[in-house]
């Protein structure tokens, strides 16, 4: 994976750039010391590291705007950064860029229960939004496993998902508005407390844009009332096919559970000595289903899910009696990543999405690949929406193993695309999957996406080298290749 070549002339101007930034953000808000910069050298994709040229931590939208304006004038690149938990390298610094951290935007500005929304600064963590409203019985639905650390701005930038997105939607379905600053310093507001932003749906396009379109400085999200009751159903299967069939049947019968997560034997084994999950060990795959709503509905759905599970040959079935038991069922799932982290020095997290009915097929082929590459793979999925998280286990200290793990990962993603799925369901393309974009999109598809980028950032200074494998200049993208259409279309009916 190659990053664009750093511009030495920019690096040579470092002290001038620092001076300019210090005039905008005083004191400790501009970080230049190498030791301190190390804290920003990577995001959650830790295989890639790069010291940023400078880090700036503005505190107000005005400062963000001034920083961007100044960098635009000086022709200096910007990498936006939330908490740096991203798993695809979206916030990976560039040697010739300023990393703009939103860590000081920590305030919740407005809690409006009547209109079921919260207005927050982008550096507020995902979990903090729920914490701010849970005493009143509300919560913010999208719940990435990183919720304690990741920021709401980063969630919007990645269109983050979570376990409860099956029923309640992804970030994009729960954001009502944003305030953002364009690369030239212009402040734009999209949406608000009302539904639909009006005009072209730029809010929808900005969500999931991985910091390429603008820097988000404010977010309005929708909160929901906590359901009265939630129950967990834990189901074990003798083979992965039965697990896949169970998921398909639940959805096919018209039930959309609050959450539906699956784990394979390797993951269950990994957590055995780490958490007291209470999971059965003699199953090939395990499903956690959460049903929420009104008591009688939950009761009814729990029974139906249990029947479906038995009908496909489940060998283990437990329904939670109390809320403690339900939470206990989630404990294992929540600790799946760290558990795997304990049985292997390193692991790569994949994030493909596939049509659900291809699950068994994809798992079988993944097992074959695992043998070919000589690397273990553990599987956790958001089963309800077909989003897979294969974790590839490797040891970065063994020469060549990282490369092999990455190749294995790429093969898994190619497999996902081949069966009708996509490269990434929620973690973003970043640098990790950038060079695989051609597996999904044609050159024209990618160019059309990049023209959107040009409309927001004609200079191309915002987070370059991410998402798109080839950098095109906007003038080049704007040029028309005119193909003469033949009139009078002999074959087209006309009236």
């Amino acid at each position, binding site marked *: 994976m190659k990053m664009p070549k750093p511009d030495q002339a920019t690096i040579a101007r470092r002290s001038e750039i620092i001076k300019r930034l210090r005039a905008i953000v005083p004191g400790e808000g501009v970080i230049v010391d190498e030791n301190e910069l190390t804290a920003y050298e990577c995001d959650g994709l830790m295989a890639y590291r790069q010291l940023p040229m400078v880090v700036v931590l503005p505190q107000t939208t005005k400062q963000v705007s001034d920083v961007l304006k100044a960098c635009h004038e000086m022709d200096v690149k910007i990498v936006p950064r939330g908490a740096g938990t991203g798993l695809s390298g979206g916030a990976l610094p560039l040697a010739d860029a300023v990393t703009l951290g939103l860590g000081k935007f920590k305030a919740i500005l407005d809690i*409006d229960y009547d*209109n*079921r929304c919260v207005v927050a600064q982008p550096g507020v963590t995902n979990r903090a939004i729920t914490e701010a409203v849970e005493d009143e019985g509300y919560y913010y639905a999208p719940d990435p496993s990183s919720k304690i650390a990741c920021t709401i701005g980063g969630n919007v930038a990645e269109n983050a998902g979570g376990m409860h997105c099956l029923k309640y*939607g992804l970030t*994009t*379905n729960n954001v009502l508005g944003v305030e953002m600053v364009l690369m030239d310093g212009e402040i734009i507001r999209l949406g*608000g*407390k*009302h539904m*639909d932003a*009006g*005009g*072209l*749906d*730029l809010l*929808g*396009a900005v*969500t999931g*844009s991985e910091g390429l379109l603008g820097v988000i400085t404010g977010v309005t999200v929708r909160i929901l*009332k*906590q359901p*009265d009751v939630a129950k967990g159903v834990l189901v074990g299967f003798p083979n992965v096919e039965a697990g896949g069939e169970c998921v*398909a049947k639940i959805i*096919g*019968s*018209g039930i*959309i559970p609050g959450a539906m997560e699956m784990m394979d034997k390797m993951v269950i084994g990994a957590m055995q000595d780490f958490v007291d999950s209470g999971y059965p060990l003699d199953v090939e795959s395990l499903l956690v289903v959460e049903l929420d*709503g*009104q008591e*009688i*509905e939950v009761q*009814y759905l729990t029974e139906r899910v249990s029947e479906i599970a038995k009908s496909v040959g489940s060998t283990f079935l437990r329904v939670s009696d109390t809320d403690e038991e339900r939470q206990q069922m989630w404990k294992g799932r929540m600790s799946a990543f760290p558990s795997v982290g304990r049985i292997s020095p390193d692991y790569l997290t994949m994030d493909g*999405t596939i*049509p659900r*009915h291809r699950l068994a097929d994809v798992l079988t082929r993944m097992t074959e690949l695992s043998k070919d590459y000589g690397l273990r793979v553990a599987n956790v999925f958001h089963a309800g929406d077909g*989003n897979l998280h294969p974790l590839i286990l490797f040891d970065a200290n063994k020469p060549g193993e990282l490369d092999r793990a990455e190749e294995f990962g790429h093969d898994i993603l190619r497999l996902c695309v081949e069966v*009708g*799925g*996509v*490269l*990434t369901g929620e*973690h973003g393309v970043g640098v990790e*999957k950038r060079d695989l974009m051609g597996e*999904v999109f044609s050159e024209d*598809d990618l*160019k*059309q996406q990049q023209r*959107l980028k*040009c*409309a*927001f950032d004609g200079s191309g200074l915002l987070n370059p080298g991410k*998402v798109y494998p080839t950098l095109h200049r906007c003038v080049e993208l*704007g040029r*028309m290749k005119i*193909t003469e*259409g033949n009139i009078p*279309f002999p*074959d*087209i009916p*006309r009236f």
Partner: protein
Amino acid sequence: MREVLKPETEDQVLEVVRWAVSSKTPLEVRGQGTKQGLGNPVVCDHILDLSGLSGIELYEPQELVMTARAGTPIADIQAALDEAGQMMAFEPWQPKGLYRTEGGTIGGMFASGASGPRRPLAGAARDHMLGFHAISGRGEQFKSGGRVVKNVTGFDLSKLMSGSMGTLSVMTDVTLKVLPKPEKSRTVLVFAPTDVGRAMLDAQNSPYEVSGVAYLPVEVAAKSQVSYINHASVGVVAVRVEGPAPSVAVRCQLLRELLCKYGEVEELHTSNTVTLWREIRDVEYFSEGGDIWRLSVTPSEGPTIADALGDVHYLDWAGGLIWLQASGQDAERIRAAFPNGHATLMRAPNNVRASVDVFQPHPDGLQALMDRVRAGFDPHAILTPGRM
């Protein structure tokens, strides 16, 4: 004389658009033309009629996904969904109440960004469009998205296409997320509510997962075909509850207990519920008469804004949506009545729509950004220019 070009294949669409690009000929992109009344009137000599591009290409009920060619009649989509007990959860409106037209195509439905009373619970068309193939105003074929719900592979251009009113690009097929139909639906009514706004918000913000919260003032209620409502001679708050049968019964009961402090409560069963929410969705109450505005506002402010405006109106989305019967010429007065949100002139004669901003104007910077976005897809403005 306007010429209608009716391609039957994607390649033919491409041919038409390329010709239009090279000769700089504007095209009005059309499905069945059932929503001609929406947006600024368009004057083009050539119509690109997509209704020949028809047919469901993929429907996998267990996967909750469907792909259809852009000109597929909505009726065909509905029929297929009905057979599998599924639906488009965003509840797209039918144009009969507003424009006295019937039918429509799936492409036109997404292009007009439809959504209905279920919007606050289930989202709008934009939330259900998973991907598409299209031909840009540059004469290039491209696609975006896919057929799976969770997908962040590249920018989400489906959101942009949804509600783009025939501008940007010509969609040739769309892939949408579908959902199971609820087993049962019922409606709780509150008659002559003492506090309309609070009654609606209490229902909306209850844990009972309501799928519609509306208010019909007395003069609108009188036009309903549901006798419980038209005989009441008072304003009515209506709250819809959907789901498995036993759950609906219990939630209705709980809502009645919650809302009875605002007025007398009553319950509608399935067939009346279907009628009522169709009327609300399709603006059937205003099918007679003049110009119509649609206001999307902060829900808690809805009742006050509507009262202050003083026009005949009703509310949906727990107050967040106001349907208003007022002259198209009143754009300024209407838009001055609320600080946040937007107002669209949904129905007015062509000459009126040509003389006012049909869609809410944007601040300069935002408008310039939208213009740049549009130019990225359609640099010569050949696709339905001026409609939006």
